[in-house]
């Protein structure tokens, strides 16, 4: 940054460092808030079998005696179908929290279930795994924790070959991971990371989606940055993750969504983003962004929509890494198509998911902050007007739009020449009428830059009753300094 600008920018607070710092603070606060709300979600696989509906046997709560009977029948029954049926009945009963409680309190019940899980009867094994899965999904932590004796076997089966069983084991593990720190403390020494690293080479999409889910839960653990992410980064997992995010005909949105979130959690932890960049993360994500912009509008695949948010976040965060700033990754992102893609996605978000607009704007902010060429693209592609159209959506969106415009304006007179004359000044006069302090504050910063590099704009401002607009905020403590500075600037240009 050139020093004369720095001097002016500091009190105005529009420096790149400042922006980055504020952004990180905001993100950290959000994440903290979300954690406190304990956004915990488990995945439950339950097939609504027609038999259940037909036979009229809606799952009822099972008592101790019934559970014992089913277990005994499953273990020692003579007829195979009988044994399987017993476990099916048990599983249905386990859908009820009361049955779950009775089950875990019954002595030897888990031991028996694990015995059935490791039996030589394939279908019995699968039903036992389903029972375990049902238990793992319980909201009551003691029920899920009762499943912990089975984890070494769940991990062993990940190296097997039956996709149905592996998928079940993975979802069960994912549920147990999110449920308890005790579970994670056991799973790590039991070798969950190497087991996942082998399993991620599976060609089965259902397995991969399940793996992504389990991994995403592991990576969100509060101890993950210290205890989990380093070993994940040291394994072949990141390379496979990026492989599964490559756009093209082989991209499966269900699988990609899981791994996009996994990537997001790893990047957020900031343990070693440079490593991800050397694996080509920026390139892959950039290509994926282009692909999404091209297909999300026309596609029937709802899964693709779900990819937008994590991809935007991953790119935004990676852009703050020094390795990218040094020029390595930026090369790929300097492509004009990236800017176009972002705007296509912004339009899409505006229609379908307006609450996600800030995600796209953060990316635009991080791109424009450091790159004059991206700012040039914005201007040459005539994207200022579409950007201004987003101002009324919400205060958060307004602040971000204005921040992006500040990034463009602070690049110098050549850029401001394209900002005024134009729709910018009238829009700013509108935003000055907002009551939100942050919006007004950011508007003032933008005006400062505009007046600095385009003094004629100050004149127009005065002519359009700018001073009155400013006067409204004279008493506001947070805005006072900037208001006065601007008044000075406008009058003594």
């Amino acid at each position, binding site marked *: 940054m050139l020093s004369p600008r720095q001097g002016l920018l500091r009190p105005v607070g529009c420096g790149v460092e400042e922006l980055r710092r504020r952004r990180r603070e905001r993100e950290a606060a959000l994440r903290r808030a979300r954690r406190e709300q304990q*956004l915990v979600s488990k995945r439950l696989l339950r097939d609504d079998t027609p038999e259940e509906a037909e036979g009229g046997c809606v799952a009822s709560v099972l008592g101790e005696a019934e559970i014992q009977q089913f277990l005994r029948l499953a273990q020692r029954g003579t007829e195979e179908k009988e044994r399987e049926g017993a476990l099916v009945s048990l599983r249905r009963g386990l859908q009820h929290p009361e049955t779950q409680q009775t089950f875990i309190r019954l002595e030897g019940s888990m031991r028996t279930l694990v015995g059935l899980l490791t039996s030589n009867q394939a279908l019995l094994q699968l039903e036992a795994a*389903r029972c375990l899965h049902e238990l793992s999904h319980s909201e009551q932590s003691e029920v899920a924790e009762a499943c912990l004796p089975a984890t070494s076997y769940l991990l062993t*089966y990940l190296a*097997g070959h039956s*996709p149905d069983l592996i998928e079940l084991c993975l979802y069960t593990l994912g549920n147990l991971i999110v449920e308890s720190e005790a579970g994670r403390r056991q799973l790590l020494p039991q*070798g969950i990371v*190497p087991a996942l690293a082998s399993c991620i080479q599976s060609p089965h999409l259902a397995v991969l989606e399940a793996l992504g889910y389990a991994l995403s839960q592991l990576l969100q653990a509060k101890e993950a940055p210290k205890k989990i992410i380093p070993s994940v980064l040291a394994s072949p997992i990141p390379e496979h993750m990026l492989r599964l995010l490559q756009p093209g005909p082989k991209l499966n949105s269900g699988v990609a969504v899981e791994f996009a979130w996994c990537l997001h959690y790893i990047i957020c932890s900031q343990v070693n983003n440079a490593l991800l960049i050397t694996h080509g993360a920026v390139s892959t994500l950039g290509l994926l962004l282009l692909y999404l912009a091209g297909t999300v509008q026309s596609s029937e695949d709802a899964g693709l929509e779900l990819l937008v948010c994590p991809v935007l976040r991953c790119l935004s965060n990676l852009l703050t890494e020094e390795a990218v700033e040094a020029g390595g990754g930026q090369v790929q992102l300097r492509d004009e198509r990236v800017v176009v893609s972002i705007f296509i996605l912004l339009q899409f978000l505006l229609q379908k998911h307006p609450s996600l607009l800030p995600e796209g704007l953060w990316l635009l902010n991080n791109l424009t902050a450091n790159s004059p060429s991206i700012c040039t693209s914005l201007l040459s592609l005539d994207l200022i007007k579409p950007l201004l159209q987003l101002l009324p959506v919400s205060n958060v969106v307004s602040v971000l739009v204005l921040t992006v415009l500040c990034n463009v304006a602070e690049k110098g007179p050549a850029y401001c020449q394209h900002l005024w004359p134009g729709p910018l000044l009238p829009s700013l006069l509108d935003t000055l009428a907002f009551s939100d302090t942050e919006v007004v504050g950011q508007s003032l910063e933008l005006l400062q830059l505009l007046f600095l590099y385009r003094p004629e704009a100050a004149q127009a401002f005065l002519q359009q009753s700018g001073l009155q607009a400013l006067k409204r905020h004279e008493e506001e403590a947070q805005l006072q300094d900037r208001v006065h500075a601007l008044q000075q600037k406008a009058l003594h240009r």
Partner: protein
Amino acid sequence: EGDVQRHLYLQDVLTGVAGVPERPRVPEFTCQMAGCCQVFDTLEDYEHHYHTLHRNVCSFCKRAFPSGHLLDIHILEWHDSLFQVLSERQDMYQCLVEGCTEKFKTSKDRKDHLVRHHLYPGDFRFDKPKKSKGPATSMAAMEVPTEAMGDDGDTMEVCSEHVTPPPEPVGEKRTYRHRVPSTVCFGQGASRGFKSTKNRNKH
């Protein structure tokens, strides 16, 4: 916003996975593996059965294992006589956990490691020590059978007889497939190739 959307997606209960009734039914068919007479009416059931019981099977003793990794270790420790020789001089019992490169002098040491370091259960079903019948030979690592097969269900071991093949050339393990004729008697009184050679050399 983004996270809320993510969690709503995860909480979606009705993901039809392992949906048994949704799979297309086919006319009943039998498993083609020798000695197996299981019947199936969906391909997925058969696939799971095959992977569980016929995929990682030891050709010597017919035991089925959950993974190729455990099968390899089993063959090495149970059916490779060179293993017995080497294990007397160096640590040959490898840790069962994928990714762990530790090796141990005895099966018991390995089990201790599994329990203490990897937090495995003390009665992990896929770590049965080798049982041996008959007198001590200089080859066999003497392992006292410690575990009785619990009455809680069948375990992975399909057969309970301990059968050993005649010593095979070094380096060949699984590739050497054969069927042990029922008339051959192993165990007490059987003389093994190496031992005879050794005795002969002594003269």
